[in-house]
């Protein structure tokens, strides 16, 4: 089985988010980037397929040279090869187009993306890849088994789960549940040393088109101060008269 894991390079969750140029650009100064958490769950599941079922695992990112450390980390965790499609990724559709191209060329049986990226939260790239490559698609995937050409997947639903069967080629939008947090891997020294000599291919983007463009970003209003209430009467009173919630 040939697996492609799509890796989005996103700011660490502890980063302080700021915008520049009249709130149109994300300020990357001093920001640490990591593998998008949803993609890390997918990558870890892919490592399981590699170790238990002999799968080959490639990782891909659409982005500039600054994303290479993130790909190198994926190689240190155990991916066999990495591909960077060299273009500034600013639009979900254009990213999906580039990744679909790689997926078609490489003849992958399984494309693992994340349910959404934690930076721009578009939640659309994997679905678009499936459409563009003509593969089956399962989103919010929290469990995946593959036997030959058949896949069994578990999908999260509002308040429950759905188990589905489908066939390869398949694209999933994965998340926690594919593996658990405790299964995530820290690259060990052997992995880091091996990653040095693993291929990281840089491909030029084809047919670049941005269908959407960001006009402005806004941060949520800062949280108000917390008020500690000692007894129920005061709480009811405040909810009624101040918050006007009841």
């Amino acid at each position, binding site marked *: 089985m040939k697996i492609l894991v799509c890796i989005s390079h996103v700011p660490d969750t502890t980063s302080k988010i700021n915008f520049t140029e009249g709130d149109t650009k994300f300020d990357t100064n001093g920001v640490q980037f990591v593998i998008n958490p949803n993609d890390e769950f997918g990558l870890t599941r892919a490592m399981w397929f590699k170790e238990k079922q002999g799968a080959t695992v490639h990782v891909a990112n659409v982005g500039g040279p600054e994303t290479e450390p993130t790909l190198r980390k994926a190689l240190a965790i155990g991916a066999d090869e990495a591909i960077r499609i060299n273009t500034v990724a600013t639009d979900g559709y254009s990213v999906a187009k580039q990744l679909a191209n790689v997926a078609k060329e490489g003849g992958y049986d399984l494309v693992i993306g994340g349910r959404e990226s934690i930076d721009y939260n578009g939640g659309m790239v994997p679905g678009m890849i499936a459409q563009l490559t003509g593969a089956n698609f399962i989103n919010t995937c929290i469990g995946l088994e593959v036997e030959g050409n058949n896949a069994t997947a578990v999908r999260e639903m509002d308040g429950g789960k759905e188990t589905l069967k489908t066939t390869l080629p398949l694209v999933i939008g994965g998340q926690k549940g594919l593996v658990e947090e405790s299964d995530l891997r820290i690259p060990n020294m*052997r992995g880091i040393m091996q990653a040095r000599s693993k291929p990281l291919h840089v491909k030029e983007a084809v047919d670049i088109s941005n269908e959407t463009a960001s006009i402005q970003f806004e941060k949520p209003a800062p949280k108000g101060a917390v008020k500690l209430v000692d007894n129920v009467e005061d709480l009811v009173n405040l909810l009624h008269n101040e918050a006007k919630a009841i």
Partner: protein
Amino acid sequence: MKPDLFEAPDYYNLDDLLTEEHKLIRDAARAWVKRDVSPIIEDAAQKAEFPKSIIPGLAEIGAFGPYIPVKYGGAGLDQISYGLIMQEIERGDSGVRSTASVQSSLVMYPIWKYGNEAQRQKYLPKLATGEWMGSFGLTEPDFGSNPAGMVTNFKDKGDHYLLNGAKLWISNSPFCDVAVVWAKDESGRIHGLVVERGMEGFTTPETHNKWSLRASATGELLFQDVKVPKENLLPNKSGLGAPLGCLDSARFGIAWGAIGAAMDCYDTALRYAKERIQFGKPIAAFQLQQKKLAEMITEITKAQLLAFRLGQLKNEDRATSAQISMAKRNNVDMAIKIAREARQMLGGMGITGEYSIMRHMMNLESVITYEGTHDIHLLITGLDITGHNAFK
């Protein structure tokens, strides 16, 4: 203990000076400390037990002999990588870093540099995986700062050496499988010998009731007519310069490690100061507390620059012993002062095991003493710049 929320300060964007691989190695060590060391270390320190369960993890992140060549089981990395790993481990605990320093710089280094090929093949791969743990015996009950006076000695008995003497304050001694021991031959010249657990007459009693480095096991190495095979003598260097060469390597790691302890104390104090309200304001809003925090980050930044430059010099094999002394002395002193200030900033909470600060503060009392005391390093700088020896 509180969850580990550590965020590393990098006030001068020093990350820009590191390679991508440096950062990958550092971040892996950092993630490992958060996952595997922070949750257990307070308990280990309270119980005064070295947490042996973390030995395989230390080996996996490359903490055992990172700069030893790959063919001997090391990672073949540069000195800055070594420093960064020590920094991250000591961010967790100086005792755990001590174990890694001893294994790398005081056991693997002398076997690699002063040993023959057979010795390297025999010991280094097993030390790199942590299958064997090592200790380093230089200090004696009557000879600490003045190791040249040591009385531990060995006599040539034809087909073996007969070793007698005692070493005190030896990190890892209670559980070590091998010990690199410095002893005088019949002519009074210092040599290194590899003594293995199980050799008759060799015992390693533990030193109890320490208030410092409680999560590191410290003990004695006692030799009573120990028959050491001749092939266990390190042939390629002798004299006091041999153990001092090991100390240069370990002290370099300590100069980085101390930054880790300081960063943890600063980060904890900063977070606490922003959250702790007194007189209707976060204590971080009071000038006196800001002075402490501002001075801490200034000192950490200076220490980071010192360590980074020393790392460059060491990579080029140009770092002098005196330069290493300066960094060890400055950075450990910086860390211990930050630990003391940070502890006060947490008020009563600062004395509990809920926070790491007091553990760091107590640990650093050992770090400022071992590998050359604070005063001894000053004398080394003094001798270097004046040419006058003020030791004796």
